[in-house]
């Protein structure tokens, strides 16, 4: 269940609630080895993207963030891109 407001916001475009990609595919464990998937959740600078950008549910956002951190430790993902 998305936690977006249902009514139209005062300004900007109306919100659409979109289910979290991991919930949609019934993922029980976000694997740190799947770095190509995790790449979708980091910015081009290598930073973890915010939940409002990734559209993940709170639980999967947390799991994705720790998976990204594990992947960084094993040099599968960079800590910083371009210095």
């Amino acid at each position: 269940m998305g936690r977006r407001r249902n009514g139209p916001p005062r300004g900007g475009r109306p919100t659409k609630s979109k289910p979290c990609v991991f919930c949609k595919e019934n993922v029980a464990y976000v694997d740190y080895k799947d770095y190509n998937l995790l790449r979708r959740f980091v910015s081009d600078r290598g930073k973890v993207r915010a939940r409002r950008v990734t559209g993940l549910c709170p639980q999967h956002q947390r799991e994705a963030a720790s998976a990204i951190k594990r992947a960084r430790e094993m040099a599968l993902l960079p800590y910083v891109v371009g210095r």
Partner: protein
Amino acid sequence: MTGEADTRPEEANIDTYEAMLIVIPELDEEQVENTVGRFRTIIERTGGEAGEPNHWGRRKLAYEIDHRTDGFYVVMEFTAGERTLVELKRILRVSDDVLRHMVVKLPPSYAHKPLPEPAEVTA
């Protein structure tokens, strides 16, 4: 109550672990196998059960580690005996041919997924 994903119900309370190693690129394939074999014997000697190692091959690192830009990635699943984890981690830490290692506990429901194909292979 055994989970439907358990293959061995009588051992359902035994945790499965997964180790990932980055072996230095100076070795050749055969030496990498020997290195991994050494860790498998450690696991088995301490009462664990080592699965087949999965060699990802030589891969570029996302950043430099000890002035090295690539390394051999090996992933291995195992079950641990009483002393396995302490002993394995100790030896991994002092091994000069292992750049980095990580041991994680796998969730019991985790099914073996196909691993990402070894991309970005260099020379």
